[in-house]
């Protein structure tokens, strides 16, 4: 299970690194979604366990020794994925409008509000 | 009984009448002492009274570009706030108004007085007043820090563990073990306070907001007649309030009976006015704007912070 945690934190750090260093707006948005993937992986891997099965059972049918996977993180991941999708959609629409107005995608030119 | 006594207090002794007389006296003494230091005869002692009465007699011109309501209201609010501040000073142990943390009330009412001067200047719509009010604000930024540090120090010393903001505890402490000026730890704080007084009042070396030669009476460029009289009166009462504050904080000698205390208080105020306002007036030329700021935030704040640290270590 610890391998999942390493991968998810690697994704988060990779996403942040991409946001910080890339000067193209699209790459910044990509970085944001990579960070989202990292957090989603983290959420899912918290509830999961190797030998767990899906927590679906009929009444009184639970055999002793069965091991259920925790369903709540999966529900949270669904919400987090939806939110990540909306944020990316909003960011992309803003990038399109910025391109129309500023004519460039380079973050170093888009700095009218400073100081 | 106490209600009538408070009304009497407010009106007569530490209140209105005493404040007005004391401020005229201090302003007069200050101008005469400066003249004597320059080996000249100097004006009569009542010259500030004549100035104010003469200004009342002149017509009040409202400039076309001024915002009339604020132009006329600012001096009234300024004078009222300064007179209310004077109510808090303990004259011989008795103060007209009692709130148990009146040092902060005094700090804020003095800020209100300077703010009315600034708002009045900006309402008069003249460019000289614009430059003047920006200088007055810089002066305010520079003297506010040391004034607060001195108050914290005195509060800490007189609070005996639980620091206080109220002048009555300060008076009681000094009644018990002598005026604070004798305590060597507090000398830097006293020096810092002596430096703060001329800048707060707007006295000659630090009157960068009403510099006649540089910006034609700066803040008061458009004022004439009645509002000018109120601002001049505010200037005099501020002189009394600041020296009274110094006496209340550092020179609070209380003998047995009231009359001797009041006499000592008046002599102390005159002495403080001489040392803190007349001497710098006669000795140095006017400071430049950034010199005032640099001087207050390095030298004066250094003194105040030094004594605060010493007091904090528990000396």
């Amino acid at each position, binding site marked *: 299970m610890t391998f999942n945690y390493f991968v998810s934190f690697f994704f988060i750090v990779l996403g*942040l690194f991409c*946001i*910080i260093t890339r000067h193209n*707006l699209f790459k910044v948005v990509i970085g944001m979604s990579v960070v989202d993937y990292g957090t989603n992986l983290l959420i899912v891997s*918290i509830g999961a366990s190797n030998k767990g099965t899906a927590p679906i059972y009929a009444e009184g049918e639970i055999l002793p020794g069965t091991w259920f996977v*925790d369903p*709540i993180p999966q529900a949270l991941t669904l919400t987090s994925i939806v939110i990540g999708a909306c944020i990316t959609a*909003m*960011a992309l629409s*803003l990038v399109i*409008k*910025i391109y129309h*107005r500023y004519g460039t995608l380079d*973050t*170093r030119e*888009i700095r*009218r*509000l400073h*100081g | 009984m106490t209600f009538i006594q408070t009304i009497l207090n*407010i*009106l007569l002794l530490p209140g*209105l009448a005493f404040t007005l007389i004391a401020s005229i006296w201090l302003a007069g003494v200050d101008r005469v002492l400066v003249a004597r230091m320059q080996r000249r005869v100097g004006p009569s002692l009542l010259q500030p009274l004549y100035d104010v009465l003469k200004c*009342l*007699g002149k*017509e*009040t011109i*409202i*400039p*076309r*570009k001024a*915002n009339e309501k*604020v132009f006329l209201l600012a001096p009234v609010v300024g004078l*009222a706030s300064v007179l*209310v501040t004077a109510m808090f000073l303990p004259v011989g142990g008795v103060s007209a*108004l009692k*709130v148990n943390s009146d040092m902060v*009330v005094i700090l*804020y009412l003095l*800020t*209100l007085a300077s*703010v009315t001067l600034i708002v009045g200047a*900006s309402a008069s*719509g003249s*460019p*000289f*007043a*614009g430059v003047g*009010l*920006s200088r007055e*604000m*810089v002066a305010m930024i520079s003297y*506010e*820090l040391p004034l607060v540090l001195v108050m*914290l120090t005195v509060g800490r010393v007189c*609070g005996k563990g639980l620091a206080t903001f109220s002048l009555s505890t300060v008076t009681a402490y000094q009644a018990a073990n002598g005026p604070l000026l004798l305590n060597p730890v507090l000398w830097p704080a006293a020096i810092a306070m002596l430096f703060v007084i001329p800048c707060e009042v707007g006295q000659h070396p630090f009157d960068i907001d009403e510099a006649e030669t540089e910006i034609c009476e700066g803040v008061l460029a458009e004022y004439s*007649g*009645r509002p000018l009289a109120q601002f001049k009166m505010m200037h005099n009462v501020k002189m009394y309030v600041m020296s009274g504050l110094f006496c209340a904080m550092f020179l609070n000698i209380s003998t047995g009976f009231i009359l001797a205390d009041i006499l000592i208080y008046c002599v102390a105020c005159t002495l403080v006015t001489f040392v803190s306002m007349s001497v710098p007036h006669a000795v140095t030329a006017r400071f430049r*704007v*950034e010199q005032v700021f640099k001087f207050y*935030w390095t030298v004066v704040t250094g003194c105040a912070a030094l004594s605060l640290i010493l007091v904090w270590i528990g000396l």
Partner: protein
Amino acid sequence: MENFPILAIMTLFMGAFINSLAGRRSYKARCAIVFTTMAISLILVLAMVPSVMGGGEIVCYWMGGWAPEADWAYGIGLEVDALSLFFGLIVTIAVMISGVYSFTYMKHDDSQVNFYTLFLMLAGSVLGLVLSGDLFNIFVMVEIMTFTAVALTAFRNDTEGALEGAFKYLVVGSLGSMSILVGTILIYACLHTLNLAQIAQMAIHARNPVMVIAFGFLFVGFCTKAFMFPFQPLAADAHAVAPASISMMISGVLTKCGVYGLIRLVYVLFQNIGQTHVQYLVTGMGCVTMFICVTMAFNQHNFKRLLAFHSISQVGYVVTALGLGTALGLSAGLYHAINHTLFKGLLFLVAGAVQHQTGTLDLDELGGLSKKMPRTTALFLIGAASISGIPPFNGFASKWMIYQAAFSKAVNTDNFFYLLVCGVALITSVLTLASFVKVAQSAFFGQCSVLCRDAEDCEKGMLVPMSVLAVLCVVLGLIPDQFGTLFLKPAAGAAMDPGVYISAMLRGADATVMPAIYGYVGAWNPVFFIVLLLIVTVGVTIYSVSAPLRRPEPLAEGDVEDEHVLPENAKYEPFFSGEESVHSHVGGSDLFWGFKENWKKYFSFWHDWHSGIVNDYELYGVVFLAAALIYCMLFV
């Protein structure tokens, strides 16, 4: 009484839904829908006040009836105690006033239906965040809040920099949301629950490193939402370009949600406000934010950008007061929170009115608006006086409480750090006063600039909300003690002892919350008014005997103000040392030369620090996240 909280939140979301359906028909229908929605939610929140604030009762509502069994909460719950209701009040009042203001302010904008849908969703999500008792529910509401705030910031996307400000707010805001999410998940990993009361119950025993990192993440997340130190350029960009009612919402309400999150995190969830290192962290953050934002605001040219930096420095005041950890400190912070919403909302609405009339917000071009817009100038003076802490107004009362809390904390714990806090707070207050003097001189008083010649006072639809705020500012300033006992002490009491919070939520026990006890030195007694009366009577008697008042006769219809005036009748012209009076307005950037001269290096450093590049802001955020985590691991 049980389901008032869920009703209040749902009416706002349902209102947003209905508005997008039925709102297209006409301006009147739209305003009716929005107004009734806001009114219903305000009434529902007010209905809860007597029992929650007065009686100390705690309202619990479990979504879908999933009440906790055997001490284990697995459903999603809404919990309203005095602290949540206090912030709920702030939210609903601010929403009501900015909604009514935007009826006239946004009248000439296109696609108003979307504006009000987003506005009501923002209001619903903010109210949901404040009243919810479930950590993941708070995260979802934070996301909706950020999403709608970004959309509303870029609403007028033809203004200069609107899209850019919104994009930056979205990118760095998502860093904050990511850290809240990771914090929530790490807490879930340790305690396997998301309910605030349950976490509070178990968090004290579970002192393992994962919980400490979770605390670090949540702290940084809520600091982002409250725009603390490294995140303040976001707020400055977002406010400067958003419409005025939205800037009021962002500065008045969104920052308060960040502050609410911090209070819940430090006082209730982890209850580690007692540790001195946590107090240093929170108070240090507040002080740094306070000072840097006020010096940044000092030489701004844009009126709204200046107000944005001030709003963050006032939030810094609130966070400093929270960090003290004493009952007086917490209630001083809460008092300053509601005062800040009032006077900052008033100032933003005034800025909106100025922009509405003159079309620009640049302080160097404005000038002399007081003769053209007298009522707005009066409202501006009330707002500016209360933010800079002038006695009769509410800013003074709450700042005084903060100084007293900081100073008594310094004395009790004999710790020099809190004395510095007190000093920084006072310097910030003076610098706030200085920058509002600058705004008064450059925009309102002084000589009338070309732009402001044809401005006239704004319609009643804008003036009424502003005057309501102004009246509240004055009233709250005059009754600090009564307001304290009615609202502050229950709210502070609710935050200080989480035990009642936990028992009410989990076991449904109806224990009452004891209001906090603190010695608070009153600032006001009526004798002042008698004295002022006396002085005025003395003044009037002298008036009657002295010389007459000379007013200039009003301008004849034809001539313009600065037309050539013959030397003979120059009596009422301003004195120009003899020259003919030309338009020369002293304002904007040529004020406070002395102060800026001495601090040149400091100002230019911070001017470059706010570079406006998205990557830099993200870098500052990540560095701060790393520093906070290291600090938490070492000390907390």
